[in-house]
């Protein structure tokens, strides 16, 4: 067998267009939000169970580790939301050309970054 032939496609050697990065992050953020559903349901359950558990939860959310997890969750959620709005706009025929798709992808990145930053300020 020819040993010189390409053995594998190493994905990180490629340079991706911004639209591809925005798209795969939509998937990653969606899957991440899915994985954290039980944590959020648990938080909702303890926040509604009793005044004591509500206060305990509030105390727990003061913990830097919990804050970080909550911030990561909200970041993924807000990113997914913003990128999803771009999808909906495209479904209505807005911004379907390559140029405007690149511009809206950058807009998603910038708006999501601002929202994630604001969420961090809000939490800390």
């Amino acid at each position: 067998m020819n040993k010189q032939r390409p053995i594998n496609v190493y994905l990180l050697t490629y340079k991706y267009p911004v639209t591809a990065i925005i798209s795969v992050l939509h998937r990653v953020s969606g899957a991440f939000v899915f994985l954290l559903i039980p944590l959020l349901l648990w938080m909702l359950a303890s926040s509604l169970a009793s005044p004591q558990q509500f206060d305990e939860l509030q105390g727990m959310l003061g913990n830097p580790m919990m804050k970080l997890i909550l911030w990561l969750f909200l970041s993924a959620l807000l990113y997914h939301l913003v990128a999803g709005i771009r999808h909906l706009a495209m479904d209505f025929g807005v911004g379907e050309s390559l140029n405007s798709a690149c511009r809206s992808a950058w807009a998603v990145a910038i708006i999501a970054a601002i929202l994630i930053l604001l969420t961090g300020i809000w939490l800390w």
Partner: protein
Amino acid sequence: MVNKLTSITSLTRNGVRDWLVQRVTSLILAVYILFLLGYLVFHPSIEFFAWQSLFQSTAFRVFSVLFLLSLMWHAWIGMWTIVTDYIKPADIRLAVILIIIIALFAYVIWGIDILWSA
């Protein structure tokens, strides 16, 4: 034979309906999430009884169950899409997506239980 197996493991069997459902549920999810985030931003020092009364109102309970069902359907389609794209062996793929679907059903039931014991 292969076609039959493919259509069984595809689970939803209708891509156009999936497409529409994904968009309709996304709107419900977005409105609920923005409402709840907005509520928390504008009530920074909220305490238990105010929070509880929000979840005890019938309108918000209906909204919450609508949210839970939309979340389940939206996550089902989304996770199915991801799993079918990245997991090649049919048996592992089917096992993973079934676990996800069972988990989503459990989350809805758990969520309704949380809402009705609030």
